[in-house]
């Protein structure tokens, strides 16, 4: 599980962790049933306060993204997928908003942006195959 934190982001660190774990689950990089690192390990890896990681895990647990199993650790919940769909759309909505705003500032019409997305999509898909 790879997460990157930027303290100057303006988003509280615990929320950055929550968002990124949700994103990892949503995008399938963390599979249902997979174990996430213990609090102490993730805190050391990210160089953040363990209490912050604990708070993030609690939040993720409340949201049903992860489950704590007694004495053995924290795991991505099996029922991850229905929520994941919603999360995926939420993440994309943020990106879409940013893109639309940027396009507006740069004086690019929405139609051109959609056209660009299609072009990029084709390009990326062909280069992958």
């Amino acid at each position, binding site marked *: 599980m790879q997460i990157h934190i930027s*303290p*100057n982001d303006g988003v509280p660190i615990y929320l950055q962790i929550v968002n990124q774990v949700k994103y990892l689950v949503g995008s399938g990089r963390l599979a249902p049933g997979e174990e996430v690192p213990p609090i*102490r390990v993730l805190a050391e890896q990210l160089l*953040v*306060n*363990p*209490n912050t990681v604990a708070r993030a895990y609690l939040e993720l647990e409340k949201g049903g993204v992860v489950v704590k199993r007694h004495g053995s650790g924290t795991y991505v919940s099996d029922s991850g997928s229905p929520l994941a769909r919603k999360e995926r759309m939420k993440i994309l909505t943020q990106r879409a908003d940013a893109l639309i705003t940027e396009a507006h500032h740069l004086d690019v019409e929405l139609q051109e942006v959609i056209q660009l997305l299609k072009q990029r999509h084709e390009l990326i898909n062909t280069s992958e195959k």
Partner: protein
Amino acid sequence: MKTPSASESSHPAIAIHSLTRRFGARPAVDDVSLTVQPGIVFGLVGENGAGKTTLIKHILGLFKAEVGSVRVFGLDPVKDPVGVLGRTGYLSENRDLPEWMRVEELLRYTQAFYPKWDCQFAERLRAQFNLDSAARIRNLSRGESAKLGLLLALAHRPELLLLDEPSSGLDPVVRRDILEAIIRTVAEEGRTVLFSSHLLEEVERISDQVAMMHQGKVVLCGPLDDIKQNHRRLTLHFETPLLQAPALRGALSIAGAGREWTVICDGARSELTAAALSLGARIVAEHTPSLDEIFVARVGKKTSTPAL
């Protein structure tokens, strides 16, 4: 992590009440009160000369409280140095290690002062920090001295770790070692850490609570999340350029030129918005400022002291 061990649950790790200390006419610490609960990382920030080191030396009992009081685990560090220092690890700002000793000699020497010294742990840290047992301390690099100082502070597994500018002047690799050690201290053992720093990004990463000192006073103190949530950075856009900064009630600092100005405010958002509107400005952006920005807004402009 927030569950303190039974021995310390009845007292805060540190309790400072109305502490004032003068050197000559100038107060180095001016009516400071703060409480550090067990199990947290407490970040103390401020410019050089703000009073951070003086405060830490009071906690250690190196200075006696002339006005006000200092308690560590409920004990007076001046009257009960054994009770306090035996449970406290300290890394001083200028390290002051005996230069003529070898690393292993200093370890043996320091061990003698601490009944709870953990040899295995000390050896593990030494290996992890890549310190050569046979090296003379005078030949150590700055980073190695810092790591040795930290090892000495950690090896008796203190309940309270006091670090005075632990990472100042060090390269990112050594800084990472030091931050990891702080994190491990609170994570594994539920111990308390108080550290001073002017690297605010670092403070922001690892602190639960923060106190900002300026000219001997604590100007801001509280949980880091609260501090960040209460502050806002607003960008104002005026239709016509302004020749000088607009006067806005509720603003901690205003910077900018012409038609766009950035304001840092604290909780007075609605008041400030109304004031901005009445001057004909629009709010075009709003963010949570970094601790660095909050710090500069709080202490940067009001004095002749150059900004960091």
